[in-house]
């Protein structure tokens, strides 16, 4: 009973301090809000309106129609016109435009003989027939932009000649589940929950305990009947609620502003989040037993945060990483949580069905608690 009272005293004190610490409290709300807006608006793999230039050697009606057709795809917009290929290349060097479309003098002959236009298939031996209609010069350093322009390579030309579409049967039928419109925000928002929780949970707990040491409060606390485990539990509980608050903010705004579907049930969502918050808080505890001041705890948080952003599958698919990176990825709690929360939010999977990820988070929490408790004892002597 007395033990409960002591834990309660710590929780109350922690909440009072949080209430007075306007900066931290603001961060609790603003970090998820700002990050969400940044990631949802700025990170976009469906690129539109890339500024490009045009070199038109043909100067014909056909070349103008070709340009219009390219603009109609929405991928690029023509901002500059150049008289020669040389001038166009200089413009790319200066980063005036990202790419240049070069329309040759004989564009109409090339177009007429182009196989997709549909004047029947000419003999394959005829070299003339397989020549492309025009050429793109692309600044290929940014792979995403390069890929977008490369996607124009097989652009259908039928509209150009006002002919009915020459419908060809695809090799594969592709059905896109869960995110049929291919909006990247649908994948980013649940992943962002993992990144933001990693950042705030680890940072707040590690700093909260280190602060106690730094300001000398610990020296007083250890002379009281307060047990280390009571202190740890009392410190952690308020942050579980803060974590929950952040999840509500991220998923709520994601749902309202970006129309991210939340398919899973509340129970599953709570379970997944709770497991991850515990794992992160415990990681924060471990850091707090190593760090000597708040700056160090902050540095160590960043040390965990960076791989959590880059290797957890939040930004880049896990499957595309080299095997060594995958090992690191598997250790991070964020990886498992991002799998879980994407499963729950997007695909309505039960947490229990994703056994491995669930068990890993639980194991991580337990091991972390033991390590933290062991190290914490040492710091008293």
């Amino acid at each position, binding site marked *: 009973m007395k033990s409960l009272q002591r834990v309660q*005293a710590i929780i109350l004190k922690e909440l009072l*301090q949080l209430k007075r610490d306007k900066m931290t409290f603001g961060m609790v709300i603003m970090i998820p809000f700002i990050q969400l807006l940044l990631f949802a608006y700025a990170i976009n793999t469906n690129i539109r309106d890339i500024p490009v230039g045009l070199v038109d050697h043909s100067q014909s009606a056909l070349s103008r129609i070709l340009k219009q057709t390219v603009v109609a795809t929405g991928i690029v917009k023509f901002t500059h016109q150049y008289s020669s290929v040389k001038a166009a290349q200089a413009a790319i060097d200066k980063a005036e435009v990202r790419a240049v479309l070069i329309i040759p003098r004989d564009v109409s002959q090339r177009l007429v003989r182009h196989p997709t236009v549909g004047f029947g298939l000419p003999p394959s031996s005829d070299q003339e027939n397989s020549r492309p209609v025009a050429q793109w010069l692309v600044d290929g350093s940014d792979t995403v932009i390069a890929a977008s322009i490369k996607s124009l390579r097989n652009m259908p030309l039928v509209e150009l000649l006002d002919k009915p579409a020459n419908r060809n049967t695809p090799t594969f039928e592709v059905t896109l589940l869960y995110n049929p419109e291919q909006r990247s925000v649908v994948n980013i928002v649940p992943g962002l929950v993992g990144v933001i929780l990693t950042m705030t949970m680890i940072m707040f707990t590690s700093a909260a305990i280190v602060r106690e040491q730094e*300001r*000398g409060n*610990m*020296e007083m606390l250890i*002379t009281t*009947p307060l047990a280390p485990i009571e202190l740890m539990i009392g410190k952690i509980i308020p942050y579980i609620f803060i974590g929950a608050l952040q999840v509500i903010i991220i998923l709520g705004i994601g749902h309202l502003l970006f129309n991210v579907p939340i398919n899973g049930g509340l129970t599953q969502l709570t379970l997944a989040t709770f497991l991850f918050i515990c794992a992160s808080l415990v990681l924060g505890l471990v850091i707090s037993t190593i760090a000597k001041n708040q700056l160090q705890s902050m540095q160590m948080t960043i040390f965990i945060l960076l791989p959590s952003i880059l290797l957890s599958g939040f930004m880049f698919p896990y499957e595309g990483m080299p095997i060594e990176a995958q090992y690191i990825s598997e250790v991070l709690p964020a990886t498992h949580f991002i799998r879980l929360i994407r499963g729950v939010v997007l695909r309505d999977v039960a947490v229990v069905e994703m056994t491995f990820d669930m068990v890993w988070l639980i194991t991580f929490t337990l091991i972390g608690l033991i390590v933290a408790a062991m190290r914490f004892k040492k710091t008293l*002597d």
Partner: protein
Amino acid sequence: MSTVNEVAIFAKGLTRKFGDVTAVNDLDLMVEKQTIYGFLGPNGSGKTTAIRLFTGLLKPTSGSINVLGLTLPNQANKLRMQIGYMTQKFSLYDDLTVKENLQFIGKIYGLSAKEQKSRIEELLSIYQLNSLSTQLSGSMSGGQKQRLALAAAVIHKPKLLFLDEPTSSVDPENRREFWEQLFDLCDQGTTILVSTHYMDEAERCHRLAILENGIKRADGSPQELMNKMSSHVVEIASNNLRQLKKQLISLPEVTSVAQLGAHLRVLVDKNIADPVQFLSQLKLIPKNDQITIVRPSLEDVFVTCTGNNLLNGGG
């Protein structure tokens, strides 16, 4: 004044090492109940380490400790409820109010809501914190912080109170008041162990121990210590004191020379029967200048029993 079972702290051969450094070296100590016992020593003399050993926060490298009938470090947990500890630095929460801090500590010590309410009322009035009860602790003056720290340290009415340099950030006026409060506590039955490097504070203690480099150099009541001092204290009023000081300090019979305004305070070894005659026959001091034996102060005791004064000189 007391029998053996009236002992609050008993330590024998107490030693604590941190790596190669011996912070407390073979310390024997006995503190009687309901007294104020002082630890006098310079910074780094092992005062804080000794206090931490007696509170059970540190384990001794060797030696035995018995505090309030409990053997340390094994029974340290049982001791927690019976002791109060006021740290050198203010260690309550700056971002909590006076009342919130006291409520927090009250809960930690397991006071019931009712006990807490009446005890906090009581403490606020004893330590004149009533008007400050809703003020953030961080915004208070050194004296106010210290009163709050003392209130928090005694909220559970400990039998034994440890104060680690309690008045280092307090002005003299507040220091006087603080000591009045300590004597009140002592009168109500609390044993107090206080560490300090102020002579005037040490002089108020019932008994004290002088520590240096972790070694106890002397102990007893301030009066006892002054009486059994191994030097005479002589005051010389003369001109050209800086020059004279240099000459005197080189003598093997002189333990220490310190300048106090227009006087030199000279400690002469007790083996010299008549220090006045000894000094005047040196012919360093003009005939008409005054040489008088004076009553020793605690500072003289401190200087006599610490350091290698023959080499360094006092002032």
